[in-house]
C-alpha cells in the first residue's frame, strides 16, 4: 500500500489557482460566443444557429448563451466567424434582490451539493464529476457532494428535465430543508437545449423549479460550474448580465 502513498505525494500539487487566480491551461474551457458587430454577415450567421441563440439588429449580433449548444456553426465553415471568448466565469443570477442573504453567512464555507441528473447527456455530469479530481478539488472550497437532499444546501441540476424525472426532481427539491438554492448547469438545464420543447422534455429546470443561479455552456467546463457554485453562496460576483450576452446593450 505504501506505493500509493509515495505515488500520491510524488505527484505534487496539481490543483488550479482558481478562484484566487486565473487558470490559464489550454483546453480547460470551450468558451462561449461573444457576439458583436459583424456587419452584413449577421443574417447568415443567425440563420446558421440551429438553436436560435443568436439575434441581430443592424449587423450587431447578441447571444443568448443559455441556448448555445457549442455547435460552432457560427465560427466554423463560415466566412466571417463570430467572436468567441475562452472565458469560464459564467455563473449568473436571475436577478431577484435578497439573494445574498438567502443561504446566509454560516453556509459560505461549507456547502453540501446535491447533484440531480434530470436527463443530462453525460457531459455536464462528467464535468461536475471532474470537480472532485485533484485539478479542481472542490472540497478545498468547502463544497461537498451529498447523496441525500436532507443534508443538501444547493441543488445542482443538469439536463433538460425529462418527463419521467420531473416528479423525482420536484421530490428532491421538496425534501431539501431551507434555505436552499438551485443551480441549473448546462444549456439543456437552462433552455432545454436541442431536446426542447417536446412531449418528454421541459424547457429547462425553470419550468419545474425556481432557479437561482444559471451556468450556461454545453457542457460548462468544471471551472464554470465552480464559479456557479461560488456565486450561489455569494463568494463570487455573478457574471454581469451584459457580458453573459443575454441582452444587447
Amino acid at each position, binding site marked *: 500500500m505504501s506505493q500509493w502513498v509515495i505515488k500520491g505525494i510524488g505527484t505534487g500539487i496539481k490543483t488550479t489557482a482558481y478562484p484566487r487566480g486565473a487558470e490559464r491551461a489550454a483546453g480547460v474551457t470551450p468558451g462561449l460566443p461573444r457576439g458583436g458587430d459583424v456587419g452584413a454577415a449577421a443574417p447568415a450567421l443567425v440563420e446558421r444557429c440551429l438553436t436560435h441563440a443568436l439575434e441581430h439588429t443592424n449587423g450587431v449580433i447578441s447571444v443568448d448563451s443559455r441556448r448555445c449548444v457549442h455547435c460552432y456553426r457560427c465560427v466554423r465553415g463560415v466566412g466571417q466567424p463570430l467572436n468567441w471568448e475562452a472565458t469560464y466565469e459564467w455563473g449568473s443570477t436571475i436577478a431577484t434582490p435578497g439573494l445574498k442573504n438567502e443561504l446566509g453567512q454560516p453556509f459560505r464555507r461549507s456547502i453540501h451539493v446535491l447533484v440531480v441528473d434530470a436527463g443530462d447527456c453525460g457531459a455536464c455530469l462528467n464535468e461536475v464529476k471532474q470537480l472532485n479530481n485533484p485539478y479542481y478539488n472542490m472540497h478545498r472550497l468547502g463544497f461537498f457532494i451529498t447523496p*441525500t*437532499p436532507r443534508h443538501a444546501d444547493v441543488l445542482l441540476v443538469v439536463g433538460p428535465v425529462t418527463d419521467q424525472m420531473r416528479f*423525482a*426532481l420536484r*421530490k428532491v427539491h*421538496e425534501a431539501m*430543508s*431551507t434555505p436552499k438554492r438551485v443551480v441549473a448547469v448546462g444549456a439543456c438545464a437552462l433552455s432545454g437545449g436541442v431536446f426542447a420543447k417536446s412531449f418528454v422534455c421541459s424547457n429547462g429546470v425553470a419550468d419545474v423549479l425556481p432557479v437561482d443561479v444559471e451556468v450556461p455552456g454545453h457542457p460548462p467546463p468544471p471551472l464554470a460550474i465552480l464559479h456557479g457554485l461560488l456565486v450561489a453562496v455569494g463568494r463570487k460576483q455573478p457574471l454581469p448580465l451584459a457580458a453573459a450576452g443575454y441582452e444587447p446593450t
Partner: protein
Amino acid sequence: MSTPTLLLVFFAACGAGILLSLVVRPARQGFVLAGLGCLAAVAAVAVGIEGLLTGAVFTQPLWSLPGLTTLMLRLDPLSSAFVVVTGLVLFPASIYAAGELSRDSAPRHKRAFTVMLLALYASIVLILIAGDALLFLLAWEVMSILCYLLVVSAPGGENGQVGSAYLLLAMGEAGTLAAAVGFLLLALGASSLQFDALKSGASALGASVRGAVFLLTFFGFGVKAGLVPVNSWLPRAYAAAPRAFAPVLAGATLNLGLYGILRVNADLLPVAQAGLGQVALIIGTVSALLGILYATTDNDLKTMLAHSSIENVGIVVAGYGAGMVFVATNHPALAAMAFLAALYHLINHSLFKTLLFFGVGAVETQTGTRDMDRLGGLIKWMPLTALGFLAGSLSIAALPPFNGFVSEWLTLQVMLRSAELSSAGAKIVFASCGAVLALTAALAVTCFVKVFAMSFLGMRRLDVERRVNETEPSALASMAILAVLCLAFGVLPTYVIPMLDPASRQLAGASASDGLVPPFFASAPAHDALPVAFAAEFHDLGAQVGQHIVGGRGLVVLHRGGVDNPVIFAMSTSYMLLTLIGLLLLTYIVIRLWLTRTRRLARRERWDGGVRRLLPEMTYTATGFSNPVRVIFDAIFRPTTVEDTSETVAEHFRMAIRREKERVHLVDRLVLQPVSFAMLWFAHSLAAMHRGRINTYVTYAFLALLIALAVLPAY
C-alpha cells in the same frame, strides 16, 4: 395482616374462584377470574413482601404422614422473593386473561379455563411455600398437568398444538422424575423429607452423591426453566399456548424451575465444588447465547419471545453459577451479589416478558398474525400497545432507565469480580462467559430493535382490508401496570436490592447490601460503614445531589472493594433518568424557544430516492433485518436448503427464483432428534415381538411357562 392470614386469603381466593366459576354463567367467568385472581395476587405480593421485610422463616405443619414425612408449609426469604414475583405477574395476568376470555367463543372452555388457571395459581404458590419434598413434588405434578391441560384445551388450536402440549408434558415429567430421584438421593442421609431435615442431613453425603444430586436436580428443574439442552418443549408450547395463558407460562411457571434449582443446589445442598458451579455458569451462558440467537432470527412473535426467555433464564442461571462458585470458594459477599443479581434479573424477566406477551397477544388479536414479515406500521393504529411494547422492549434489551439494565449490569459486574478467584481455570471460564453474556446483551438489543421496528414502525404490510384497532382497555391496563413496574424496578434499584438482600443472604450467608451500598446517601450515620476519605470523594463527585429532594435511600448503587480501592463500580439509573429527562426537556426548549422562533418548522415526506411511490415491499423485512446474524452464525444454525430453483423461459428469461431454507434448532438436532430416534428404534424392536400370528403368541406363552417352571422351584 400476618403471614398465615394472608396465605389463607390467597388460597381462599383461589378456592372461591374455582367454586364460583362452576356456578356462574360463562359470560361472567371473566369477572370471577379478574376479581379473585387479582385478590389472590395481591395476597401473594403482600405475604412475600412481609416475608422479605421481616426476614423470618414461617413454618406450618399441615398433615403428618407416619413413617414418611409431615407435609408442611415453609416460607423463608427465598420463597418470599419468588412469591412476590408470582403475585406481581399474576395480578395483571388475571386482568388480561379476563379480557381474553370475553373474546373466547366457546362457553365450556371459559369455565374450564378459569378453574384450571386458578388451580394453577394455587399450585404455583404451594410449590414455592412447600416445606417438604413430598408436598413440593405433589404440587409440582399438579402444576405440570394443569399446564398441559391449559395448553391442550385451547379452542381453535393451531397445527401441532397437541404435539407441543404433549412434548411439554413428556419433558416436564422426565424432569420431575429426575428431580424426584435427586430428592431421594438427598434424603439418603436425612431423617425425613422435610427441607430442614434434608438440609441438616446433607452434610453427611459423599461427593459423588452430591454431584449426582446436582446434575439430577439442575437438569430436572432446568426443563421447566428452559435451559439448554432440555429446552425443546419451550418454544413449541409457548407458541401453542392460548393467549390468556402464555403470559402466566412465561412469567410464573418458568420461575418454578429456577426456584427448584436454587432451592436444592444453593439452599438445601449448597454446591461445594467450584466445578459444578462452573457447569451451571457455562450452561447458563450457552442457553443465553443460543436463546438470543434463535430469538433474533425468529420471525414469529411468540416463539421469538420463547427463545428470548431461554436467553434470560440463561443469564439468571449464569448468575447462579457465579454465586455457587463464590460460595464454594468462600467469597460469601460476592456470592450474595451474584445471587442477588440473578434474583433481580429473574424478577425483571418475569415483568417484562409478561408485558411483552400481553403486547404480542394484542397484536395477534388485532392483526390475526404473529409473523413480523407481515406486520409493520402498527404504531399508527395501536399507539398505546406500541408504547407498552416499547417499554417492554427497552427493558428486555437492557437499556436504561428500565429494569433489564440494572440486573444485566450487575450480572456482568459480578463476572468481572472473578478476578478475586484464585484458580486460573475459573478465571478463564468467568472471562469467556462474561464476554459471551456481553455479546448476548448486544444481540438482545438487535433482536428487540428488530421486533419493535418491524412490527410497529415502518410501512404497513398487512392487507388493506384488515381493520386494525387499539386493543381493549383490560389489556392496556395490564400492560400499563407492568410497564410502570419495569420502570420502577429500573430507576429504584437502591430500594429493590435491600429488599432482596434477605433472600441472597440466606443462600450466601453474607449480605450483599454491605457490598452494594444503597443507603449511602440516606443519612449521615450510614457513612459509618465507609472510610471517611471514600465518602468524601463521592461527596465531591456530587453523588449526594438530590438527597434532600428524594428522601430515603441513596440513588447510587456502588460496590465497595478493599480499603485501597474502595469503589469497584458505581452506577445510578435514578440519576440517569433525571439526566435523560433533563436533556430531553432542554432539547425541547432549545428547539421550541430558540430555533423555531426564527425558523419555520416543516414536515416533509421521507426521502426515498425519488421513486414515484415507496411501496411496503421496498422496505426491510424482519428476515432481512436479522439476516446478518443468520449469516454470521451460520455454523450454529446450519440451515438446510429445501428449495433453490429458478424458473426460466426461453433459456434466459428469469420468471421465478424460489428459495427456501429450513433449520432445526441446534438442541433438537443434537439432542431431541437422536433421543426420539433411539426411542422409536427401541419401540420398533419391541414391536417385532408382535408378529400377529397365533403360533408366535403360543410360543411366547409356552416359553413363559417353561421359564416359570424352571425358576419357581428354586424358591
